Each structure stands twice: as C-alpha cells, then as structure tokens.
C-alpha cells in the first residue's frame, strides 16, 4: 500500500491515497510558486533646460552710474563683499551623457531694460559653464557623465547718470543647441 516516490510533492501525495479535493489543492500550491515583479522605465526628452535664477538684483540707493558688470563666474559672497550687487542668470541642462552642445548669447542691442522714465541697455553678455572662467564665445561644451551641466550668464548694464529709481525690466534669450 505504501509507495516511495521518486518525484516530488504532487505525485507523492496522490500515490499515498491523499488525492481528495483539499489534498490535491494543497499539493498544487506547493508544487509551484509565482512571484510578481514590477518593471519600470523613465523616458526622457532629448534635452531639458531650466532657468533657475534671473539676472538682476537691487542696485539700492547708491548713486550708480556707468557700467555695472555682472560676472557670471563670481562666486557667491556676502553682499558687502560683492563688486556688483547684481547676480547672474543661472541655468541647468539635462540630456544624454557627454552630449555636445553650443550656447548662443544675446548680441549688442538685443536686450534693454525698460523703466517708467528711462531704459538701461545691456551689453557684453558672457557665460560661465560649470564654474569656468567667463567667456563671450563658449565652445567645446559637453554634458557631464551624468548628463548634466549648469551655467550662468552675466552682462554689463549701462547705467546713465541720474537714472530715476524704479524697476527696470527686460528679457533676453540664451539658445542651447545639442548636436
């Protein structure tokens, strides 16, 4: 009446005469097991650019006149230690690892800050990529091994003498081209 099985649970239980419905169900449950897993992916666009800071700030009550240079390579420092109270614009790029890209800065006359009674021309746009020295002609740019790169853009404000205190606003474009 007793038999020794060479195979495993299902066959053994049936051969021993335990093939009633509940026993069969139990045997099946022990004979195989299913494990579920998730699969996931994040599809990214070819490139993504985000502006994280505007160029500008508060010139305050100082009798500023002439050229005010905003150096994009200047490190953050207490306001009292800064040569200019203005900060550069900041951007972050994301894309393919090591992807080459080019930056095009505004040219002379491309940007003027407008106030209620006067304007402030902006010239001499420069960029600092990844903390490198400022340049008006960036080249040989690539995203880092993680596919990221930050850069800052500064310029020179031509502030006329006796400019009325007010808010002066303008826009400029920086173009990023990926090869």
């Amino acid at each position, binding site marked *: 009446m007793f038999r020794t099985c060479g195979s495993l649970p299902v066959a053994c239980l049936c051969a021993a005469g335990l093939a009633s419905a509940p026993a069969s169900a139990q045997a099946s449950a022990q004979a195989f097991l299913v*494990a579920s*897993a998730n699969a996931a992916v994040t599809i990214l*666009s070819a490139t993504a650019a985000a502006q994280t800071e505007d160029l500008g700030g508060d010139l305050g009550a100082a009798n500023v006149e002439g050229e005010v240079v905003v150096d994009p390579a200047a490190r953050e420092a207490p306001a009292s230690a800064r040569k200019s109270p203005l900060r550069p614009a900041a951007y972050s790029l994301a894309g393919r690892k090591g992807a080459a890209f080019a930056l095009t800065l505004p040219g002379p006359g491309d940007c003027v800050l407008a106030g209620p009674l006067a304007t402030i021309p902006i010239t001499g746009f420069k960029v600092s990529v990844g903390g490198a020295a400022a340049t008006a002609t960036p080249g040989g740019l690539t995203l880092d091994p993680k596919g990221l790169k930050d850069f800052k853009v500064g310029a020179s404000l031509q502030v006329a003498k006796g400019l009325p205190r007010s808010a002066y606003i303008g826009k400029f474009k920086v173009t990023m081209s990926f090869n």
Partner: protein
Amino acid sequence: MNTRIISLGITVLLGSVAAFGQTTATASANATTAIYVPITVTKTADLSFGDVFAGSTSGTVTVDPAGAATATTGTGVSLGVHAAAPAAYTMTGKDSASFSLTLPANGSVSMTGPGPAIPLTAFTAAVGGGATTAGPTLTAALASGGTQTFKVGATMTIAASATQTQGSYTGSFNVTVTYN
C-alpha cells in the same frame, strides 16, 4: 443431497483448525514516505530600465540578468543617469532539487505610461550568478542547502522620441518556479 451437506461441514472445521495454528505468527512490513519542503520564491528587486532617452528612430533597451552592460539599438537611443537593473529573486526548497523557471512569453507584458505602451520581450534569466539563459522556460537546480537566487532581464522596445512621450512607464510580470 445429505452427503454434500456433511462434506461441507468438514471443510469448515478444517479451516478453523488451520487458523488457530497461525495465532503466534508475526509479519512485519516497512512504511516509507518522503517529506519535501515546499518551494518558495521571493522577489528582492524589481526590473528597472533606468532612464532612457528615446531616439530619432524606434529602438530597444536590453537588461542583461548576468550583469552585462545594458545594450541599446536605434538611432539616438541612449541611457540616462539612473542605471538599469534586472529583477532579482531568492528561492528555498528541497536540497539540490531540480526546478523549472517559467518567464513571461513575448507579447504578454508591457509597461504603460503617458505615451504608447512599451512592450517587453525576450525575457532571460541568470540562475545563481551563472550565464544568461533565454526563456520562456529553463531548468536549474537548488543548491545543496536548498536555496537559490536568480535574476531576470528583458528587452523593451520604444518608439521614436517624437512619439514616445517622456515620463514614467510601469508594468508587472510573473515568473513561476516548479519542481521537476
């Protein structure tokens, strides 16, 4: 008629005597059975294709369960910051028992998200840190301690970037282990 009745009575009597003669006999028999440990499988990591940049054409990304570099096809299809990784499992069961591992069939699993569904095909597995073996069914054995590990990879097919909307895509799949 009477003669037949008497003969039958004698026969019964002799049979009874014979039965009394075996009252001290002993017969032994062996009882054997085999107890097996239920097979179990537990997922320890999900299958991730990481970050992928869609290209100018459709393409594929293949995650290898044995640890080979993630492969891509298609113009411009490339990998992002977050790396891909195979699904991982642990098993327990009978020492050294042979088992079958059944992976999803082609066309049975896809990941869904903001754009066209991303089908998964060509599921593969690497058991115990061994070489990659193609599915959908493969045979392996538990180790002498009754444990085993395996990883599962697959290939996903994405459309060109103009069609494959960026965003997160997810899906789920089953693997089945059974004693042989």
